[in-house]
């Protein structure tokens, strides 16, 4: 196997890992503050990607031609719309289900995901066609030895990593992060200590959705294409990552995401027939991992055994 090929695969694996991590952190936040498996997360992300795409369309007409300014505006639009949708989901569909059976909350998010996805497919103009997401970053190549990588690929990886690090700092260092951790640890006690529970839950959903928007932007800028069905698979992969890492645990979510992307890379490098088997391989390994470590690699240990 030649080095150029392997390095290309590793670089694209890194992009995937970053995207998965941004999604998985959102899942883990939601589980932490509300113990809800929010499957609409992936389609909220898709919505963010479409919002960014839509915001780009009129920019050239309005005389905004600088790619940097376009990038900033598109990102702002995407993040704003995604957070708004995430908050609507949280406020009107998830918070009212406090105390409802787990199955109900799970189903409502699954069905919300379907509503968002189908809504975009049916009501966005020609929503079922793939859309061409603009390339707003430099597209030159840099060569490091035999390795030839496009500049924007590297920029996206670093941007994604920076966002992940910043999120970690936000959770560890700020009052808001403290409140999230307090609620995740023990909701009752956190309430007693004067934490505004609803606000923290909504804040966590806003944060998670914002991260989804970042994932959507990276996804769009990397593949230069968005489509209405991109969210479901990202949700499933993001959630599997969060589970194998250990739910409710940011570091675990990131670890899980890198493991999943790693499995896909290994799958596409070494599976004999077709790289398409890499997904089958990755999911099969995930199932085995869940069987071996049901609470995740960095998980809380469940002591009740029945």
């Amino acid at each position, binding site marked *: 196997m030649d080095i150029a090929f392997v390095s290309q695969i590793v670089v694209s694996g890194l992009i995937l890992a970053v995207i998965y991590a941004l999604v998985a952190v959102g899942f883990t936040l939601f589980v932490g503050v509300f113990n809800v*498996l929010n499957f609409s997360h992936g389609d909220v992300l898709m919505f963010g990607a479409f919002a960014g795409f839509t915001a780009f369309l009129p920019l050239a007409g309005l005389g905004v031609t600088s790619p940097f300014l376009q990038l900033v505006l598109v990102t702002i639009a995407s993040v704003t719309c995604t957070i708004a949708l995430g908050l609507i989901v949280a406020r009107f569909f998830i918070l009212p*289900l406090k105390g409802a059976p787990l199955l109900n909350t799970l189903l409502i998010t699954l069905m919300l995901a379907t509503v968002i996805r189908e809504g975009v497919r049916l009501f966005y103009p020609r929503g079922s066609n793939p859309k061409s997401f603009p390339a707003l970053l430099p597209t030159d190549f840099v060569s490091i030895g035999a390795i030839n990588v496009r500049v924007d690929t590297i920029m996206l990886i670093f941007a994604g990593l920076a966002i992940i690090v910043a999120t970690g700092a936000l959770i560890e260092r700020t009052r808001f992060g403290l409140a999230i951790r307090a609620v995740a640890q023990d909701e009752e006690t956190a309430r007693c200590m004067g934490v505004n529970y609803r606000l923290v839950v909504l804040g966590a959903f806003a944060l998670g959705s914002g991260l989804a928007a970042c994932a959507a932007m990276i996804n769009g800028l990397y593949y230069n294409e968005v489509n209405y069905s991109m969210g479901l698979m990202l949700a499933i992969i993001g959630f599997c990552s969060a589970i194998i890492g250990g739910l409710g645990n940011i570091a675990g979510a990131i670890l899980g995401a890198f493991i999943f992307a790693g499995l896909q890379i290994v799958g596409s490098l070494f599976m004999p027939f077709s790289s*398409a*088997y890499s997904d089958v391989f990755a999911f099969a390994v995930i199932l085995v991992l869940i069987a071996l470590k049901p609470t995740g690699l960095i998980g809380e240990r469940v002591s009740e055994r*029945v």
Partner: protein
Amino acid sequence: MSVTTRNGMRDRMFAAFALVATTLLCFAFGRALLTVNDERIVVALLVTLAAGIVLAERRVTRAPDSALVRGAVSTAPAAVLLAIVALILVFHANHFALLLICTLLIYVTVALGLHLQFGYAGVLNFAGAAFFGIGCYTAAVLTQLAWLPHPVVMVLGGVFAALIGLALLPPVLRTRGHYASVVTIAFGVLFTTFLEINETFGGAQGMHVAGLSLFGFDMTRNIRLSPGVTLSFYFGYAVVALLLAVGAFALVTRIERSWIGLTLDAVRLDETRSACFGIDLARWKIFAFCLGNFIIGVAGALFGMLMSFIAPPNFSFSASLMLVAIIILGGIGNRWGVLLGATLIVLVPERLQTIQEYRVLLFAALIVGLLLIRPNGLAPRRMRRYFGEGSA
């Protein structure tokens, strides 16, 4: 004594009246739903159905002991069965109506399998379509072996679904609550992806399935009984599908009305409590998961033969979600709700062409609304009775 006799006679009278009335009502409703072309009438029928259910349910909960209600409830299974038999006979030559009836009955069977898993044991299975698909593909492969009788093929479809489900059990049993659902979701995705890329089972293109033949009857061609009377080849499928659905329904009913049903409920409702009273959680989850998948697989094998061509998109995650929607809409744990849910999910889009494109959106929105307003579904589950109405 005389009072008892009088009551007994009156009970029988009420029951007979209820049987006739319910049969007529179901038959007329089914016939209208299958033949009326005007979409406004279809909508009116559905509104009537919804109102009828709400009224009936109110009646049943308000006066559960009144003779009429008991008569109606105890004869309902017979009435529904009679109505379906009548529909099959009336539409014996109408391909399209029979096809709809077959599809409906097969989905009822599948939903009964899921109902065992979700409704009783509380084992979440979001890969229902995948197990359905295992049944279909088993039929596709095994019907190529000419010496293998088709009833055996159908049973094997169920066996393979149950066996492949067994492989999923270690992660399902070791994960708690709704996290277990992720295991089945991941499996569902894995399953469709695998089907799409592998070449042995037709890949993304799908596979042909030979038609069903039972006891010498080849169900790929119309049957001419006598000059003027021709049975659609779907007639045979409808009979088999009805037998399958009735069998599954009877099995599920017996399970509900037994210690097994009680045990499954206990497992779903409180695992710690159940363990403290000796209930082997794993054993009963395995029982419900495997039996449910078996039923789904058998139905899948019949579906494959009915459709004659199957392809991976039939068995995707969204197809699994539609199956779950059937049991949620009907009311989880209520085996009658399955019939209601299947009618809504299978028949309505076929009859309301206008919504065809919007059907997924509509059903998803409907379920979201229902879960917010009526978390137990359209027809919530009733208390367990160990024997028919009137005894206990």
